[in-house]
């Protein structure tokens, strides 16, 4: 009798356990090495929309710039990347194809998605745009530099000389320069190339800028520090020279920007990462094309005495009007 009662109790408990299933929690957490400098907001927002919630099923690891020392940065960068790999990074997202190629040398076969590239085949990031072939894939711009040059001539039809600043250290710089120069010839515009190799070159380039240029044409990987940019503005504004940049992001002093929206490319990168995390191979994921957007900064244009035609303003996706940056800088009550 005692034994049968014991069996009864055990089976009842088992039955209760059966009809009250405990569903296993999905404890898969992805680790993403997030090396995007600009556009991270859009990237993370899209990742969240795709179901990757930070702290729940995704962890982002970042490069720390707290102790940035230019001379020691390469070693520090490699050290931090290695720490990320040791921490079990599943996938990296990089700023550009050049960054991705450099990163590949450090991380091996871990998938890398680049958020921007002008010519990833030329940089060796991918074998082809349709079939990347390796562990790198990402987003290519849609020839923004040529159209940017054309827009400059539409803003200032008298444009004859463009001061073309580019990073000589990047792999695709020569290709892009060649494309721009080809169009410039058709538009009867002279491109004055200004290669940058070291940080010290920036100030020299600014100081050596020819007086009769109509535009300062910035290209990828050309980053001014505040002092140098102020020096640049001190020269360009009195001479009615406009500065143009590669993205549509509003920035003080930049008259025009044309290129991909970095939030959008961040979102695109997130969607590619989602496919990879769901099992797709980067080798089979074609490089996607980013749309271009036009930004016109009327405040900067006014400072440089440049009049923007209404037809261009109609084409602009973003128009920065005077007072915009002051409003941003003023804390809301």
């Amino acid at each position, binding site marked *: 009798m005692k034994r*049968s009662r014991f069996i009864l109790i055990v*089976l009842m408990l088992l*039955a*209760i356990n059966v009809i009250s299933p405990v569903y296993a929690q999905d404890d898969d957490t992805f680790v993403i090495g997030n090396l995007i400098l600009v556009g991270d907001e859009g990237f993370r927002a899209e990742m969240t929309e795709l179901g990757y919630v930070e702290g729940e099923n995704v962890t982002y690891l970042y490069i720390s710039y707290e102790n940035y020392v230019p001379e020691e940065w390469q070693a520090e960068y490699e050290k931090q990347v290695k720490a990320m790999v040791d921490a079990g990074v599943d996938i990296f997202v990089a700023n550009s194809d050049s960054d991705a190629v450099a990163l590949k040398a450090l991380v091996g076969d871990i998938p890398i998605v680049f958020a921007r590239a002008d010519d990833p085949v030329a940089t060796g990031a991918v074998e082809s745009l349709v079939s990347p072939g390796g562990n790198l894939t990402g987003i290519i711009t849609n020839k923004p530099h040529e*159209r940017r040059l054309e827009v400059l001539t539409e803003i200032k039809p008298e444009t004859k000389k463009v001061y073309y600043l580019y990073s000589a250290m990047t792999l695709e710089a020569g290709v892009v320069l060649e494309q721009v120069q080809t*169009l410039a010839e*058709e538009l009867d515009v002279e491109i004055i190339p200004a290669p940058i190799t070291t940080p010290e070159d920036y100030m020299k380039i600014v100081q050596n800028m020819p007086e009769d240029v109509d535009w300062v044409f910035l290209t990828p990987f050309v980053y001014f520090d505040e002092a140098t940019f102020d020096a640049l503005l001190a020269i360009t504004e009195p001479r009615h020279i406009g500065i143009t940049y590669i993205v549509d992001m509003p920035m003080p002093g930049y008259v025009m920007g044309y290129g991909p929206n970095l939030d959008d490319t961040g979102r695109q990168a997130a969607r590619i990462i989602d496919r990879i995390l769901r099992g797709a191979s980067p080798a089979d*994921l074609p490089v996607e094309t980013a749309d*271009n957007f036009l930004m016109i900064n009327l405040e900067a244009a006014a400072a440089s005495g440049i009049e923007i035609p209404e037809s261009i303003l109609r*084409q602009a996706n973003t128009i920065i009007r005077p007072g915009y940056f002051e409003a941003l800088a003023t804390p809301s009550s």
Partner: protein
Amino acid sequence: MFNSLRIRLTLLFIILTIVPLIVVGTLIARQGSNTLEDQSVDMQEQLARRTSISLGAFFTERQNELTVLTDVYGLGSMAPRAQKDILLTLLSKQPAYYELTLVQADGQETIRLTRGEVVTTSDLTNRAGDPLIQAAVETAEVSFSPVYFNEDARERLITMAVPIEDLFTGLTGQVLIAQVRFLTVQEAVLRNLGLAEGEDVYVVDNNGLVIAHRNPNLVLKETIFKLPGSNGRHVGLSDDDVVLAMNPIQLASQELIVVAETTYANATALASDLTERTMLITFAALLVTGAVVIFVVSRVVSPIIKVSRVAQAIQEGDYSKRIELNRKDEIGQFVTVFNAMTDQLHSLINSLEERVTERTREAEEARAKAEHADQVKSQFLAATSHELRTPLNAIINFTKFVSQGVLGPVNEQQVEALTKSVNSAKHLLNLINDVLDISKIEAGALQLYVESNVCLAEEMRAACTAGESLLEGKSVKMRMEVADDLPLLTGDKQRIRQILLNLVSNACKFTQHGEIIVKAQVDGDKVITMVKDTGPGIAPEDHEAIFETFRQTETGLSQGKGTGLGLPISRRLAEAHGGQVWLESKLNEGATFYVSLPIKPSHLKPTA
């Protein structure tokens, strides 16, 4: 295993409970699955239709956009610079276009603006042979090209040709050509469908080529989907088992197909959930029922097993076992009655055993008394016979002496009287000898003097010789037949002769005429001796009685011959040798007595 009542009852109850549950659950799950599959097809059809409407609206919107430019703003009559500006603005504001081109009626491009390459004047071409432009010019209707892949854009496009009417001539003066990006179809239509995991909606052309999909890679990879013939359950784009529906959309002469699919697992998730829950409930019910059944069966069967064990113990003679069960129900009553019955049985058997013991003891005592009495009787008879025989021998001998004149002369009359005295004394002596023998036999004191070379023929001859004296004055012939191969017997020669003498003398006494045949022959491992006479015979009812001591037939009693001990002694002596004595006879038909004696009886050893 299935001989166990517990297991059989348990299995029976579980089967009766669970099988119907499983059957009902399976039927419900299957019915639910079929219904859900049908509903899912309906839902996918609605989704495909809705997407087609959105897709149609997307292209209608593009058509309206372009028509507003041409008809409202008068694109065709604007200055070239204004045309370019307005088209650039459209290209900038509306991502759906990859390229906008203004073409004269003769096919000459005047403006071409792309989202990628910058097109200069030198790049402009003449597209006079373009059938799309020709169709727009000829029909004055918006026409669409097939969907195609553009290498520069690296995406799939469809070209719309919008004719621009020359208001003065009424003819098509120019054509606005717009390349529409299917990538934006994906952005504008497919991404806003709010699809769940496992659901998919995409657009294919007539050949199944995927031209718009949430995953642009499938478009870039030129994925082909083999279109099924009907809506329903098929293999989906990702080779999954899906429920899909297709809905065509017509763009001028071009037909596109919107495919909406959801995985079969998704479509029947509710049924799967129902099945899973049914299985869980069934399993839980199995466990609960199993537990209850085991409990109930145990409650029923355990007392039966206990009763069985106690009954077995009783069968083996152990009446001390009782069933311990404290229950008030029918089984408790049964056990109580069984225990009471066992108590009664135990008491009864104890009583019987006591009675049997008592009776056995009494019987033993009676038997001992009887044996003692018999022994005393035998001893008495033996002693008495001995005491009688001694003086009787003296009487016989001295009477013989007297009759023979040893003690003085006797006359003939005296001799006759003395001779009668001697005969009577001899008769008495024989009687005493017989009594002595039967007494020894019954007292178990008979001892055989065993020899291994007893010649039966010789003993038969001696018996016949002795019997012939009894035949004086009778017309009876005695004949002896002995087989040549008669073997020597092992036995007591005197006792064998005594048997034969008894039988032969009986035959001689009771046979008045006719013949007496004494015959012996071998029969297997024994020798059978037959004494056949033509006397008065013996009634069948007396065949056994004559072998009882002191019992005689009517004939024997009427003739006053014999003591009634000869045949019992003969039978006992034959039996002492391992043989038998029997007869065949009918009244007035003579009698035949048989004696069988084993040639070499195994239980007799020659006396040393």
